[in-house]
């Protein structure tokens, strides 16, 4: 279990306990986090689950592989150094307290 917080641009926040093994795109859509769609179900084809990871947490969310790195080029809001596709971050106890910022497309 990990307590995950999504922070929106309007200042609102959603914090949820996420079961180990679920990816954070699934956790977001299940908990009505806005702007996270995850249309491809987490198979790295849609780039609609883009988040910015609070920098201090970045290393703990794991490596960005080549496919994710490429798909991050397709996001609506331009990627930054702390961009991840949240379908590729898997909940685990090490991520307890993780904060994600949700970009809002224009």
């Amino acid at each position: 279990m990990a307590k995950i917080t999504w922070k929106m641009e309007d200042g609102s926040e959603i914090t949820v306990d996420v079961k180990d093994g679920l990816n954070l795109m699934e956790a977001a859509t299940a908990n009505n986090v806005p702007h996270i769609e995850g249309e491809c179900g987490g198979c790295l084809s849609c780039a609609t689950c883009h988040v910015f990871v609070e920098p201090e947490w970045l290393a703990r969310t794991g490596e960005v592989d080549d496919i994710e790195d490429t798909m991050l080029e397709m996001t609506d809001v331009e990627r930054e150094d702390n961009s991840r596709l949240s379908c590729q971050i898997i909940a685990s106890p090490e991520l307890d307290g993780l904060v994600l910022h949700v970009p809002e497309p224009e």
Partner: protein
Amino acid sequence: MSAPVVIVGAGQAAASFISRHAALGSSEKLLLIGEEPHPPYQRPPLSKKYLLGELERERLFIRPLEWYAQQGVETRFDTRIDEIRPDRRQVVTADGENIDYDKLILCTGSHARRLPAEIGGNLPGVYTLRSIEDIDRMAPEFQAGRKLLVVGGGYIGLEAAAVARQLGLEVTLLEMADRILQRVAAAETSNYFRKLHSGHGVDLRESTRMTRLLEGDGTVCGAELESGEIIDAELVLVGIGGSPNTELAQAAGLDCDNGIRVNDICQSSEPDIFAAGDCASFSRNGQQIRLESVQNAADQGDLIARVLAGEDVSYTALPWFWSDQYDCKLQIVGLNQGHDHTVIRAGTSDSSLSVWYYQGDRLLAIDAMNEPKSYAFGRKIIENGVNPTPGQVADPATDLKALALGK
């Protein structure tokens, strides 16, 4: 009290409509009616991870069941609609209940075509693949060493063949056209997947017609080919395409043409009735088309919510699609219908390749096999109307990102 917006069909398009409706803060009441017993779920993983046993059922659901109530949406699953009465703005359930609607959104989807009963299409052990129940019925039969016959070399058949090989079944796949994926892809893409499946031990037979399925001990036991050859099989998966669920719409007098005909705001010939997803037929580049894909269902559902909220929008979304087979990720962007030539871009490894479809100088679509760069940047290249020359595409030194950005 005014009648609700009624959504008939609880799949991807419905979920997307409701999500957008909620996000826009729209005030109309929604009633979601689905024939299946489940809330909307993802179908693409059915023929992949769900059949493989790597994904629990709950993880297929696009939103958890309680989400709908949280959005103020009334849901009625396991409920079939038998009739639409546009003159009274009512739908009628199989139990004879009349339900009033203000607007009606048809997300009725499509169904898998079956082989005729006369040639064994309804024998026990013959499956089609479209729903959770289909997989739950067939999955126990996917045991190592058993013999599976796949009829049809489209994406569903190929994905199921890949899963079956991974689970250790013996697989024969029949395609009556001269190549697999003939209706949907260029020969180069067919060649890639033929090699992939043959390399994984699928007995893949193209230009091969089956005359009938054979019965033994009350269940399917094989197939007879036109050549007279008998193929043994303990189970059969029929993947010969889908047909739109238009019976309700047709009976109600809506214009249908291989799907419920809709305009560029997904509105049918009845102004208060909209249609989205697999069941909707629409005009694109002068052709009447219908798409069976998550992208199309999600984008059309989303669009209808915007239209009902008064936004001035129309459906122009660029199609995309994917398939996973063994260790190959196929990603497609654009629509290749009407292409007159293709250009091959070699990948960075033996197992990667992309096929670029052109109509004259215009780039229409890309099939990217283990080539996410061709897909991701190709999407931008198409969106930005770049139309690179064949020479640029074929040259491995071309920087696709720079091309996409017009540099």
